[in-house]
């Protein structure tokens, strides 16, 4: 699935160079209030997030609400400005004098959102919506409309039937197919799917997941797949990034993350998954309470307030993302941010 086979004329650095590298990404939102509307607090939505996406792979990002996964996606697309951090697209620093502009990056990086309805203009037909971005990037009206019809066919919607329809005339699954077609209209190399299948019914979700995997092979795409659904992430991803309260807590190949998680949070997250087997129901709560508020998160390790292994050091130092303490790091691919060897050991044994 992850093999990068056909040569792409847009490929610059070769297969070994990551398509996207993110270094130290940070976004703190001010919370204003009080008499003079002064800043009273900060939401640390994304704090020092670094990762890379290899060419042709699917990187899954999982975490609960408020963990910063969607903010990360919006920062990458520059829908919001990061406070700090470097983004490098296929060797070119984005927004840098020596690299490529944000616009040039957006041509190669597109996004699909969760809400299929609000992400389409209700006054544009499907064909117009899909043709809009190519038009803005200088393609002729006729050419972009014909490309739109072709794309509708590619996502399994008959253009003769759907090209002139408006968003309200389509079902949720069909609208999401249109959103995918629109994301592909500029022939991007990386597609960010932000909870793109989460709002769909199960039978429709499976159809769209099949479509995504077909399109990936056909158009030589790389996916950044963001979801709270652990099952879907395990199904689609080659590598997984687990986030908690704005930080990366663990990352690695999907098999190794799901079979041998080392971080107590990753382990608890997976243990919270319903079992699908009435004879082996969950009997103990993996975690109690809700995730803490990202305003004033705990010092040091942000998970320590819910962690049964927490020690004094966890409150003082932010644990760095490093190889697991047992040394089995899958050739440097598996990284975990946890201070406590006992915790990591117990986690791996449990799994």
């Amino acid at each position, binding site marked *: 699935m992850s093999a990068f086979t056909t040569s792409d004329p847009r490929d610059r650095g070769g297969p070994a160079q990551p398509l996207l590298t993110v270094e130290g990404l940070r976004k703190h939102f001010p919370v204003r209030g009080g008499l003079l509307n002064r800043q009273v607090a900060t939401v640390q939505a994304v704090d020092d997030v670094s990762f890379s996406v290899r060419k042709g792979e699917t990187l899954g990002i999982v975490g609960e609400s408020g963990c910063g996964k969607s903010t990360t996606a919006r920062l990458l697309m520059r829908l919001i400005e990061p406070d700090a951090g470097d983004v490098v697209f296929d060797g070119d620093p984005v927004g840098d004098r020596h690299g490529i502009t944000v616009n040039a990056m957006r041509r190669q990086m597109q996004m699909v959102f969760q809400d299929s309805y609000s992400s389409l203009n209700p006054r544009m037909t499907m064909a117009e919506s899909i043709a809009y971005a190519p038009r803005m990037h200088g393609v002729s009206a006729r050419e972009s409309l014909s490309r739109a019809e072709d794309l509708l066919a590619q996502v399994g919607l008959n253009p003769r039937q759907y090209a002139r329809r408006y968003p309200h005339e389509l*079902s949720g699954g069909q609208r999401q197919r249109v959103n995918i077609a629109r994301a592909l209209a500029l022939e991007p190399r990386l597609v960010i799917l932000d909870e793109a299948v989460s709002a769909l019914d199960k039978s429709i979700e*499976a159809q769209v997941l*099949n479509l995504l995997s077909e399109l990936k092979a056909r158009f030589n795409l790389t996916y950044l797949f963001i979801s709270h659904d652990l099952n879907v992430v395990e199904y689609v991803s080659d590598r997984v990034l687990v986030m908690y309260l704005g930080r990366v807590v663990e990352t690695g190949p999907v098999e190794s993350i799901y079979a041998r998680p080392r971080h107590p949070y990753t382990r608890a997250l997976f243990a919270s998954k319903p079992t699908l087997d*009435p004879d082996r129901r969950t009997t103990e709560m993996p975690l109690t*309470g*809700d995730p803490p508020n990202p305003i004033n998160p705990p010092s040091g390790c942000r998970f320590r307030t819910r962690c049964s292994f927490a020690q004094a050091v966890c409150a003082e130092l932010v644990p760095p993302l490093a190889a697991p303490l047992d040394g089995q790091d899958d050739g440097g691919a598996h990284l975990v941010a946890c201070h406590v060897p006992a915790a990591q050991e117990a986690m791996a044994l449990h799994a």
Partner: protein
Amino acid sequence: MPDAIPLQPPALRIENLTVRFRRRNLDVAAVNGVSFSLARGETLTILGESGSGKSVSLKALMGLLPNYARTEGQVWLDGRSVLDMPPAELAKLRGGAISMIFQEPMAALDPVYTIGAQIAETIVQHEGIGRGAAMKRALDLLDHVKIPSAARRLKNYPHELSGGMRQRAMIALALACSPSVLLADEPTTALDVTVQIQILLLLRQLQEELGMAIVFVTHDVGAAAEISDRIAVMYAGRFVETATAREIMRTPKHPYTQGLLSSTVHGGLRGRVLETIQGSPPNLAQLPPGCAFAPRCRYAADICTTGEVPVTIAPTGAMVRCVRAVPVPAQEVPA
């Protein structure tokens, strides 16, 4: 007609419930003949996709549908017929013997009253006891649903609580008058996984302690497997299959149930193309004749689109609404 009431009437019994929405030239058949009965201490999950009629069924039981909805059929709560009750008597029942929890607690809780005041009001209204005593009961209830520092939370407004905590507060409110039936409409859908499992475990535990019957509505196969004794799979306003949770998860009989389970994604399917149900659910204003699932069914034959679909009931009580379930064993059909 109502026959002799058995010694221990089921907590909830429903016969042939139908709901139609009629407005001007539109006639939508949302629920098309649903029957089931439920004993105290038992959990039935209604599993279905959006538009299958699962939430409408619950709202019909509570008499919460708008006035252009036409509800027919029979509903007995603890042996008393509900649908023909005068509104005043029904109002006494709601929040008393039967109560409901929702997906969105913010919409179910009143934002301008504290949690404690809302729970106490329900108790005062239904049981006529004093406010002070009711407040004490409210405190017990918050303890019961495991809200930490309950005494302080009693004085909180809904917006001051986290999502999982609000869900617990709503459950406490629903349980305030020890209902014999609790209707749960997707109560875990909007929650994070780590909180969802907490709420499922809480409901299971509360049921063990209090013994109420639960009707749990969800689209999530995982949640259904965690909480149900029996599962009813709903499609286009009908139950297409009813069986124990174990039977549904292990040996689903109806092609729709099979499709629903096989399109439920899990990691074991990595690298494989998912088996999907083709097409999308039918328009409830124009249901196809015969089996409503036939247009999407891979086994559909001519017989499926003519006439009523026969219902087969196994000795175990498992029900399937499919022509294939009648004459031949399922294995003879080519995969």
